[in-house]
């Protein structure tokens, strides 16, 4: 079935309408307003929304029923993701429900399932991801953080970096090196670390948008119970790749781009140059058309992949294609936003990112949120495997070069 036909399936349309309706009635307005304005969200904002989804049974809709999920297909999951994004819901922080949870219920022990899955579902436990290291960014197989077995504990030493929201985290799942024999990938294990363990230090990294999303996590003689090893020693790389595949159809971020494009459209209508709104200018009009065309095309590509996935096909390489197209489109949209703002001068009043803030803004209303989004999104072509790496993967795996 073609993607476009699949989208017309009545059951699919009904599901989409359900999600839209739920967002319209249950997404707290204060949270939505912050998201749409690009303002700072605090931990409790995320938790509040995720608990609302938990109550509805949707936060882990993509999990299997035995673990509390709804057995959503990739298509349902994509629709859920897109529609919540479009509605202005916060980012569904994936570290628990998308990463730690599936690894634990797929590869973990019964004790691990019993202990961790409830807190993941309810967002009572906040997770973060300890993968990257200063010397292992694109080259993740090169991780150096060592975990040495000492009785019924591992003693962990090393440093993780770019750890998103670690400042709020109760738990971190990590890739650690348990062996330096053989291929680098084979010495890596998957270990769960309680952030309150002595020896764990979190240091903030302020990014170029002046915000604190990222952290360094230092691990100095951290004693982790051996029972926190997930699956087998030396199989951590396999579990990490399983996750990657699991997430393969979400990288396009169609929902986010849709929301940002709406924001761009409003911005072009609001900003005047020479007395007329920018959206009347032929160059802006063409640029808006170009971005819209790219978004429609990206959506069409996603739909084809989703249709293939519904038909049971798992080529597994869409993740790279969608990551490239999706991230470059987001940068195209946020780049257009700041170009529009620039007509009046690029004022970056970071106080404007705080929701309580009341003073009339200097510069254009809404500018801080858009500038923050633009600066932050320079990272979309870097994180999760830089786009250069994604192109290497496609050249090798798809083109056979």
């Amino acid at each position, binding site marked *: 079935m073609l993607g476009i036909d699949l989208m017309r399936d009545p059951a699919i349309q009904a599901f*989409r309408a359900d999600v839209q309706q739920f967002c319209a009635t249950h997404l707290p307005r204060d949270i939505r307003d912050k998201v749409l304005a690009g303002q700072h969200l605090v931990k409790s904002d995320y938790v509040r929304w995720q608990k609302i989804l938990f109550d509805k049974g949707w936060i882990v809709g993509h999990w299997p029923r035995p673990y509390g999920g709804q057995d959503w297909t990739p298509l349902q999951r994509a629709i859920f993701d897109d529609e919540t994004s479009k509605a202005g819901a916060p980012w569904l922080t994936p570290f628990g429900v998308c990463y730690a949870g599936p690894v634990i219920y797929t590869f973990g022990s019964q004790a691990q399932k019993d202990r961790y899955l409830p807190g993941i579902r309810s967002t009572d436990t906040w997770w973060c991801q300890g993968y990257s290291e200063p010397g292992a960014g694109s080259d993740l197989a090169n991780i150096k953080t060592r975990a040495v077995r000492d009785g019924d504990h591992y003693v962990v030493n090393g440093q993780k970096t770019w750890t998103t929201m670690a400042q709020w985290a109760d738990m971190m799942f990590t890739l650690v090196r348990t062996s330096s024999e053989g291929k680098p990938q084979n010495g890596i294990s998957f270990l769960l670390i309680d952030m309150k363990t002595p020896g764990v230090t979190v240091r903030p990294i302020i990014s170029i948008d002046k915000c604190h999303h990222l952290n360094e996590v230092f691990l100095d003689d951290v004693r982790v119970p051996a029972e926190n090893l997930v699956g087998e020693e030396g199989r951590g790389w396999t579990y990490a790749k399983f996750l990657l595949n699991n997430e393969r159809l979400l990288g396009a971020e169609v929902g986010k781009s849709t929301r940002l494009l709406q924001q761009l*459209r409003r911005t072009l209508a609001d900003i005047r140059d020479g007395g007329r709104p920018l959206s009347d200018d032929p160059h802006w009009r063409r640029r808006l*058309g170009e971005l819209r*065309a790219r978004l429609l*095309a990206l959506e069409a590509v996603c*739909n*084809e992949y989703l249709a293939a996935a519904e038909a049971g096909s798992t080529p597994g390489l869409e993740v790279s*294609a969608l990551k490239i197209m999706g991230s470059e489109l987001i940068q195209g949209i946020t780049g257009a936003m700041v170009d529009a703002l620039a007509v009046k001068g690029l004022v970056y009043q970071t106080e404007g990112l705080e929701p309580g803030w009341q003073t009339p803004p200097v510069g254009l209303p809404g500018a801080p949120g858009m500038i923050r989004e633009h600066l932050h999104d320079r990272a979309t072509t870097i994180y999760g495997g830089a786009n250069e790496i994604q192109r290497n993967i496609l050249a090798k795996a798809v083109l056979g070069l």
Partner: protein
Amino acid sequence: MSAFTQEDRSLLADSINRFVADAYGPERRAAILTSDEGFGRAEWATYAELGWLGIAIAEAHGGSGGGLAELAVLMRAAGHGLLMEPLLPTLVQAAGALAGGGSAAQQAEWLPAIAEGRAILAFAQDNAAQDEAPVIAEATGDGYRLSGRRGFVLYGAAADRIIVKAERAGQPALFLLSPTAPGVTLAHARSIDDRPVSDLTLDRVQVAEADRLPGGDAALLERLNQMAALAVCAEAVGAMQAANRLTLDYLKTRTQFGTSIGNFQVLQHRMVDMTLAAQEAAAITWAAIGAASIGAAETLVLTAAAKARSAAAARLIGEQSIQLHGGIGMTEEYVIGHYYRRLMLLETLFGGAGWHLDRLGGWTAAGIDGEKA
């Protein structure tokens, strides 16, 4: 709705691809290019026999009752194989105009003739969607007198009839014109991709009322241009996929500096971008065709996006497939340059990227952006 299933379309695609591989090879194609007419009469007869020419013609008129989706399968194969025959004007534009706006008599006369390969029809309107030099149809007692000029009439030289867009009492109208009628002058040349193309001059040409398409109004023309734009996108997708395939093969086999040039990372990434571009163009083209086939509201928006994205992809792939081939890509003997020129033409037909982006941008700015729900 089409009488074809998705499986039927796959079978159709297979059969066309097999024909191209078996019977439309480089030698035959070279002979066709240097022939007087610039396309294959024998091939046209074969297409009729194989049922392709009637694929989107109603069963009542001797066709098999398909629609745009089936034409798109044919056009994609035409792009893939660089077919030279007048599929676009005859099957998409003329048959579309007759089916959508022709009288019962006109349909009965011409649709079976097209399906059976007995008639070739051309279509004459401005290339750009805005009609700045209209042909004027002046009413006479029993018909019309047509005067004016039309450029870029594809396959005008071979046409049994040319459907001409004209202005009648300030409104667009379509006329079936015999190229041998007094006052009709055709000047012939070749398009950049070697197709026969003509300038058409009409000097007080007498046309009967019976040769006007009664339903040939602005709405039909908009629909026809949309169909034709999507048919062209499908043809471009076929050409891009073929050009990418050739270029990838070349990267794997050509050696320089002691290694296959496909080992150079810069060329790898460029080939990745070409592949993604073709994939994107294909996806949005099929989405738009799917919407158009059921008359969905978002057809307009999707068509503009499809034409714009396939034009952008065509430029990237056309230019870079020559560049990656190096010198050999610059030779007429090798086929990649023919793909380049075909893609150059397809880019421009029925509105270039800019024209469609401007429309799409206008709709988006106005909030009419075909957003589902």
